[in-house]
């Protein structure tokens, strides 16, 4: 195959870089069509002037429009529009050959770069787009030259242009007035695909476990706090139908909660998710999230069914008394069991109830049972039959946290102790780079809550009885060796890199993506109260743009006629500057030696130095001066201090 020429590569490669991120979400057929078009452009089969190929291009364009219409039932809107755009850009490349076409292709590439931001705003994507922009700019520069530029030259040019634009971009980012609400509808906010669910069947949490996604990040006010002992409370599941646990009905009442003892301060950055729950540790009385509300089950949630990335500062009490008096509806709910089913478990629970004096004793007996009998903690539990709890407790005895929490709660209810299942996260990993904790979906957990007279709702984690490592050291430690690869944990040597990367992403999320109307107002108000107004922002922006452009213009003027200067030239320029300050200015056409003679007459005190420096300069610049001489020149200049001299004394 003939290698495509440089001009073609300069056209196709940068635009391909801009097209690539769109392949993540445009329909697969569109990506394939684009890939085929690009490949066609690069092969010698492609002919610009072939009539047959022109016809094919026209047919492709029509087919693309029809296919897009069939897929989206519209051609407008970000989804359909971008799908159509990528196809048309690829087709444009198929008919591009002239300089003007190159410019159009590059402009389309810039547009693709911006369109990428509609769907992706992560740090890695931004870095990619910055590189793509530099490559596109390099392509533009190359297309304007009579010959395609060498790769290094063009990239250096493109990169330097992008770098020069960067101060402007940062200024606009900081000062461009932000809308109180983000461009709703246009910017597609990514939501997590996984998250805590309102219901739990055996297996639902363990599916979550396989996800490496970050659920939330926690920054403790007291850096010594160990997040691994904390339970991040999510939805409370109180309704059981024999197989599935579900949330109980919502009530308008608020839980009666009384904080006791230790309080911790921290802030949580919750990743966007398709669920309303706002996990917190322990008892939290207020949450600074718009519209956040507390349910009757001491859960925090948003009113909508999904949320964007949220950041909130929290005060929590790790010890508390929840519902010292159990409301009747809660008692009824927390004791309800479906009629029939799991007879053996009920029998066992009744036996414990008969043998125990207090509910607390029943709880202890149940935990002792889990501890004593050969239960196993595993991600691959065997399937359970009709009487799921019975099968689990007496036959399979292999399960995951949802099995233990569910079975324990059923046992408690059968023994007459009010109990319910709580789901959320437990554990986490410290990111030593940023000093914050990362809780991933993998750390999802289910535990139980029992109501004891005098103590209120008390957390009981039956999983801890079976596999204490789960609670103390994390999931991976608790699993049997053979199952650990299922988690896709990163190799140990990769960990510092992952942590560094997470730190970057977190910073990006907090400071760039999280820079919204409120933050802008707060930042500007802190700088100067007058800045925070629309007028202030606009004036500051205009002034800043003017300053930056003036700075760039000055830098350009200074270097207008200059090729890059060698060190010898720079040193000599310094020598001339020094003498110029002393009133001795070299004419542009004056030879160095002639000038040295004149300068020595003007400043006889410096004659020796002027002579030495001029000789070294001439030898280095025009003779084949040895490397050691530049050191001498440097030293000579170091001690050369013409000062104001005679000229200023006048």
């Amino acid at each position, binding site marked *: 195959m003939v290698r495509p020429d440089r001009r073609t590569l300069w056209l196709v490669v940068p635009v391909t870089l801009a097209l690539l991120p769109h392949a993540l979400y445009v329909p697969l057929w569109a990506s394939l069509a684009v890939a085929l078009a690009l490949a066609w452009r690069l092969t010698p089969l492609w002919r610009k002037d072939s009539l047959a190929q022109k016809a094919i291009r026209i047919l492709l364009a029509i087919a693309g429009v029809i296919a897009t219409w069939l897929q989206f039932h519209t051609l407008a809107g970000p989804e359909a529009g971008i799908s159509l755009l990528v196809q048309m850009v690829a087709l444009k490349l198929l008919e591009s050959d002239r300089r003007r076409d190159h410019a159009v292709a590059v402009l389309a590439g810039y547009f693709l770069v911006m369109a990428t931001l509609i769907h992706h705003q992560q740090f890695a994507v931004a870095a990619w787009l910055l590189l793509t922009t530099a490559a596109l700019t390099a392509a533009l520069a190359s297309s304007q030259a009579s010959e395609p530029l060498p790769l290094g030259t063009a990239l250096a040019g493109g990169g330097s242009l992008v770098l020069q634009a960067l101060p402007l971009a940062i200024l606009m980012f900081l000062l461009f007035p932000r809308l109180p609400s983000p461009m709703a509808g246009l910017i597609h906010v990514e939501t997590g695909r996984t998250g805590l669910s309102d219901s739990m069947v055996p297996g639902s949490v363990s599916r979550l476990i396989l996800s490496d996604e970050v659920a939330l990040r926690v920054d403790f006010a007291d850096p010594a706090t160990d997040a691994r002992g904390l339970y991040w409370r999510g939805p409370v599941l109180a309704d059981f139908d024999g197989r599935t646990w579900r949330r109980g009905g919502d009530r308008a009442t608020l839980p009666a909660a009384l904080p006791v003892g230790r309080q911790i301060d921290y802030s949580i950055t919750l990743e966007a998710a398709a669920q309303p729950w706002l996990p917190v540790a322990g008892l939290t009385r207020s949450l600074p999230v718009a519209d956040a509300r507390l349910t009757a089950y001491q859960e925090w949630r948003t009113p909508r069914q999904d949320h964007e990335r949220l950041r909130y500062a929290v005060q929590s009490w790790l010890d508390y008394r929840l519902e010292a008096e159990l409301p009747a509806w809660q008692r009824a709910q927390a004791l309800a069991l479906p009629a029939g089913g799991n007879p053996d478990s009920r029998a066992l629970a009744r036996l414990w109830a008969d043998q125990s004096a207090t509910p607390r004793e029943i709880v202890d007996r149940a935990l002792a049972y889990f501890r004593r009998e050969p239960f196993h903690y595993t991600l691959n539990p065997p399937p359970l039959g009709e009487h799921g709890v019975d099968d689990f407790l007496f036959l399979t005895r292999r399960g995951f946290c949802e099995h233990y929490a569910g079975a324990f709660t059923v046992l408690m209810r059968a023994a007459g102790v009010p109990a319910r299942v709580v789901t959320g996260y437990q554990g986490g990993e410290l990111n030593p780079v940023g000093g914050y904790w990362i809780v991933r979906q993998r750390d999802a957990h289910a535990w139980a809550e029992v109501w004891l007279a005098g103590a209120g709702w008390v957390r009981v984690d039956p999983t801890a009885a079976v596999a204490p490592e789960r609670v103390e050291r994390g999931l991976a430690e608790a699993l049997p060796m053979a199952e650990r690869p299922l988690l896709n944990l990163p190799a140990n040597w990769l960990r510092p890199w992952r942590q560094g990367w997470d730190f970057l992403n977190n910073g990006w999320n907090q400071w760039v993506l999280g820079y919204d109307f409120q933050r802008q107002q707060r930042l500007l108000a802190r700088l100067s109260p007058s800045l925070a107004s629309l007028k202030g922002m606009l004036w500051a922006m205009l002034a800043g743009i003017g300053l930056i452009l003036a700075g760039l213009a000055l830098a350009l003027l200074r270097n207008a006629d200059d090729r890059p200067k060698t060190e010898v030239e720079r040193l000599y320029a310094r020598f001339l500057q020094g003498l110029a300050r002393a009133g001795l200015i070299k004419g542009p*056409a*004056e030879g160095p030696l002639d000038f040295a003679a004149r300068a020595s007459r003007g400043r006889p005190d410096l004659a020796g130095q002027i002579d030495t420096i001029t000789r070294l300069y001439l030898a280095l*610049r025009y003779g084949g001066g040895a490397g050691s001489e530049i050191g001498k020149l440097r030293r000579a200049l170091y001690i050369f201090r013409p000062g104001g001299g005679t000229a200023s004394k006048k």
Partner: protein
Amino acid sequence: MNAHIDSLLGRINQVVLGKERQVRLCLACLLARGHLLIEDMPGVGKTTLAHALARSLGLDYQRIQFTSDLLPADILGAAIYERDSGGFRFHPGPIFAQVILADEINRASPKAQSALLEAMEEGQVSIEGETRPLPTPFFVIATQNPTDQVGVFPLPESQLDRFLMRLSLGYPNPAAERDLLAGQDRRDLLAGLEPALAPAEFVAMQQAVRTVRVADALLDYLQAIIQASRQNASFAEGLSPRGGLAIKHAAQAWAYLTGRDFVQPEDVQAVLPGVVAHRLRPAPGITAGNEFWAARILLQVPIP
């Protein structure tokens, strides 16, 4: 080597008084293997200078007085029938010498001028179908009268270009003039002038001149000058590439004469008027004869 040069210059300066700079330029011209044209009014010592140069360099020389009836054969030589041998035998003309003093070159007809100038360019002569090489080194030191005098055939630009330098001497300064008036007859002095160099030494010096370093920075300067000559409105046309090379070679020789092994901007400036003046045609409106003044414009080109 420096001592040689100093004694050489010293000897010539004893004969040609008060013209140290011109003498040095002449020597630089010859060291750069260029031909020299000395232009001035009659009687300012052109011939004496040419004579002194040839004698002190220790080269064999011939003098040709150009007149309006001079024929090419008078310069090149001719095949003459000899009765004794019954055949033609070539009698070489005065051109077969290392140094030719072509006096008052612009008095001769263009035909005779061409014969000399072709020999200068080729380093050989073709006579009656036979090519004969000229000796090496081979120089022409030509003198000419100002072209506005009566009875002259001005050399065309294309032929002026063959001379590396054109110099003019001018009146001597009062002190030199006094010495001249008071001192010995120049002709006697010339007759007593001893060669300061062996011929091989002079050739070695010429070779050394070509090794004098010309750095990139200096080439930048040269190019700036050439560009300026082509862009400046004072000139009808700019310097040819040959003109550029001429500056470079002359500057190398000038640097060599000061005992340096590299060229610096001052060397270029020193030789510039002599090398470029006769190659630049002033634009219409600039008075003819002001070529030296025009060349000064190029001295204003900034040194990069």
